[in-house]
């Protein structure tokens, strides 16, 4: 075993197909693994050589699109971004992302997730937007102003934070860390005119105040968005601790 570059790992893949049966089961697939093999590589090998019927979503294979989110050994991760070697052990359990309805096998339904996102108007709200042909001037921003929201704009909507959040686990009306993080992204953007209305959007029983800084969202985020930071900063504005920076 020592010195050998290739070994085998057992993938336990969650299988479910409502069209066929109500039962779910785990399919065991032995896949060859090298130092650089990712979980996605393993799943595609399984799909190619062992069972082509495995349902899986993926696209860019480089942690840029956010499609391949799944629960790997109990934690929501991107399959393309998780190396088998970092997981340890001889068995890797792949399950669909929790808190999302399952469509089939490892594929989940993101419509509720996107609905929450759309509800907070995730775009720049600015009077000048109406004058698309006769814009008075560029929306200029200093590097400091950009830094206030830039990291939150890195969100790839992979849904890992939504899966990790304990409030999302039980509260169907809670928008989730991704939505709240994006709300902060737009609130903190100096080009945005949403102001207090943006804050009022989530100032209700199942809004931002059901976040308790469990930090699980930031822990699993693959892009360093740190939604927990955005949400706590947004709360400080709502409590009047931080004042509006003025436009």
């Amino acid at each position, binding site marked *: 075993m020592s010195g050998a570059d290739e070994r085998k790992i057992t993938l336990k893949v969650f299988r479910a197909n409502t069209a066929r049966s109500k*039962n779910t089961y785990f399919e065991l697939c032995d896949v060859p693994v090298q130092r650089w093999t990712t979980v996605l590589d393993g799943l595609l090998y399984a799909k190619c050589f062992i069972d082509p019927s495995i349902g899986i979503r993926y696209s860019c294979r480089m942690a840029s699109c956010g499609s391949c989110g799944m629960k790997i050994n109990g934690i929501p991760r991107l399959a393309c971004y998780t190396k088998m070697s970092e997981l340890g052990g001889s068995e890797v359990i792949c399950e669909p992302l929790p808190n999302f*309805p399952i469509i089939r096998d490892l594929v989940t339904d993101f419509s509720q997730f996107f609905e929450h996102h759309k509800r907070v108007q995730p775009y720049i709200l600015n009077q000048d937007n109406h004058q698309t042909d006769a814009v008075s001037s560029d929306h200029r921003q200093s590097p400091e102003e950009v830094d206030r929201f*830039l990291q939150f704009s890195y969100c790839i909507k992979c849904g890992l934070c939504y899966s990790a959040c*304990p409030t999302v686990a039980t509260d169907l009306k809670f928008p989730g860390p991704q939505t709240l993080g994006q709300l902060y992204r737009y609130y903190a953007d100096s080009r945005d005119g949403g102001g207090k209305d943006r804050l009022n959007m989530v100032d209700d029983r199942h809004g931002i105040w059901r976040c308790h800084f469990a*930090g699980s969202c930031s822990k699993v985020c693959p892009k*360093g968005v740190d939604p927990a930071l955005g949400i*706590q900063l947004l709360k400080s504005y709502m409590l009047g601790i931080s004042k509006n920076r003025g436009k």
Partner: protein
Amino acid sequence: MGVLEQKNNRNNREGFLGWLDPTRYGWERFSYWAQRLTGVFLLVYFVGHVYETSSLTSGKDAWNAMLELTQTVWGHLFLIMVIGTSTFHSVNGIRIIFTELGKGLGKPGRPDYPYYPSSLNRRQRSGIWIALILAAIAMLYGSNVLFSGE
């Protein structure tokens, strides 16, 4: 009903079971779990405490009967739990107030690989450890008073 349908009925949400395991996501998730648990425990204790002290209104005998019930070894151990949980809940609560006001979390910036989140830093996290240590100290002091102060 199959597992899948059950899961879909609630959108495959982890549900209450998702609250129970605090070990998956680091110290802040543990703080969330512990704050809730201690909070509920203290609320139950508080209701019981208001009820037990109401025996004052029924005179000396009723009060002493209540003391017989509570000034026992088990009563003392329970009180030590209350001391520990209330210390933890208070100190961690102060830390939570700071973090929810955006203090101690670092500033937004330009993250780079390996993308460690600035909010999950040692500065605010140490509040949790301090809360645990102070709770332990308070429990030690409390047990000293309760078990040898007679």
